[in-house]
């Protein structure tokens, strides 16, 4: 069991010693059940840190965003950031290290094991609660979650309310960390890895086609999936209508020659294009934190696009993203024995 006090103590030490410029963690939110990200810089804010089944966010994202922010600052504070990271979040940190986006000494990883649990999927919870709104959700021992609503408390089966990614998670503890809170639990006995993906893969071609057409048609291109993804750290994205990395070296022609791979229009085809390109660019990089799926306001099961490729990477290329920052990336490497029979 992870005791929040331990985390707070460590956060306090780091801040007191001035070793870090901020501790990235979770706190309660005025917006609802889920916790919200917080940057703790003051000792007296340390008490606001929380750790429970509502800490859904992948805070690795802020290692990226803070880098951009720092670039803009005149004389930035270059001390490392401390960040609370779950198993998936830590894999994201590994990929960022692998891609030299951050240096190891720029971050102090406060690794937190999800042990036998994971995080809440609010949509599942809403279905279970039939409209009642939960005000708190605490992880309670192996396999169950205690939920508080206006009309009292209920203990629910974790498998009914945890996010799919947590139920399918193979390593629910950090793969990189400076401090580790909680025990490494391997046998969790929830669902099997890639279960949701396999279910879709098992459909007939027509079914899959209709399934995704329906979802893509709904996309409003708010790009929450992109914005929340720690791996989508490009300054300029393929869907951006204008070239907005403009520097002293940028020529007028470069601006004019921006390739319109995808139109801004929300047509089903262009929406599909956007999600295809994104999935390809995440191949071997996505660590299945599933934030894209969580933040999608219109509830497109985006995670499946990435996990479908992740499962291929594992089965065919024995590649698991975010496990080893030293290895070359999935698509920048190959083996002589890679599948070949699909080629005519």
């Amino acid at each position, binding site marked *: 069991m992870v005791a929040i006090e331990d985390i707070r103590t460590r956060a306090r030490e780091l801040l007191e010693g001035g070793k870090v410029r901020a501790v990235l963690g979770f706190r309660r939110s005025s917006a609802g059940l889920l916790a919200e990200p917080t940057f703790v810089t003051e000792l007296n804010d340390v008490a606001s840190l929380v750790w429970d089944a509502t800490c859904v966010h992948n805070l690795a994202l802020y290692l990226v965003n803070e880098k951009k922010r720092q670039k803009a600052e005149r004389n930035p504070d270059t001390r490392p950031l401390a960040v609370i990271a779950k198993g998936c979040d830590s894999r994201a940190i590994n990929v960022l290290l692998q891609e030299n986006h951050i240096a190891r000494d720029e971050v102090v990883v406060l690794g937190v094991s999800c042990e036998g649990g994971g995080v809440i999927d609010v949509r599942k919870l809403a279905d279970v609660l039939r409209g009642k709104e939960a005000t708190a959700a605490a992880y309670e021992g192996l396999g169950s979650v205690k939920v508080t609503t206006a009309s009292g408390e209920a203990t629910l089966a974790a498998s009914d309310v945890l996010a799919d990614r947590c139920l399918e998670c193979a390593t629910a503890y950090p793969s990189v960390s400076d401090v580790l809170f909680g025990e490494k639990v391997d046998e969790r006995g929830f669902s099997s890895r890639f279960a949701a993906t396999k279910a879709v893969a098992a459909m007939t071609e027509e079914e899959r086609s209709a*399934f995704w057409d*329906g979802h893509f048609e709904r996309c409003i291109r708010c790009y929450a999936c992109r914005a929340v993804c720690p791996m989508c750290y490009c300054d300029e994205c393929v869907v951006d209508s204008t070239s907005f990395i403009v520097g002293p070296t940028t020529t007028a022609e470069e601006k004019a020659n921006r390739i319109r*791979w995808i139109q801004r229009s929300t047509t089903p*085809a*262009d929406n*599909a294009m956007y999600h295809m390109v994104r999935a390809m660019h995440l191949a071997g990089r996505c660590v299945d934190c599933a934030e894209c799926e969580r933040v999608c306001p219109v509830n497109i099961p985006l995670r499946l*696009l990435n996990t479908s*490729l992740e499962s291929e990477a594992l089965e065919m290329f024995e590649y698991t993203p975010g496990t080893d920052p030293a290895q070359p990336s999935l698509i920048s490497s190959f083996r002589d024995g890679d599948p070949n029979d699909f080629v005519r």
Partner: protein
Amino acid sequence: MSEVLEAPVQAKKEAQEFEPKIVAFLCKWCSSAGSDLAGVSRLQYPPNAVPIQVMCSGSVSPLYILSAFNKGADGVLVSGCHPGDCHYLKGNFFARRRIYLVQKLLKFIGLESDRFRMSWVSAAEGTKYAQVVADFVKDIKALGPQRKLKAKN
């Protein structure tokens, strides 16, 4: 939604006079040379596939493939040197892995897997190139037009 419902009906209608549009990305050293040989040998194959010569199959970005579909291609072919024969030593190995993933992804979203193909065609395999294209055209004709990724306007 409506479009999705009508699609199959329309597809059937068009199937008869339907001539697939195909983009073929050919690596300069093997596959393009192979298709040249097909020409020199006067082998006949359907004219649906328009070749785009690239230096190496390794340079074919997933974006090229998706973009071709977006611009209305009914099928996309990527062809390179046989494994081990790459003019650039190993470009085609990177291509093979990348293309494999693209193919799986397209399959996963329900695009008919016959619409996207990769082939190894060496400079000596004019006959094979002709065959690859002929088969491809045949298979795609059976599928009808591609709508999933085609820009609607």
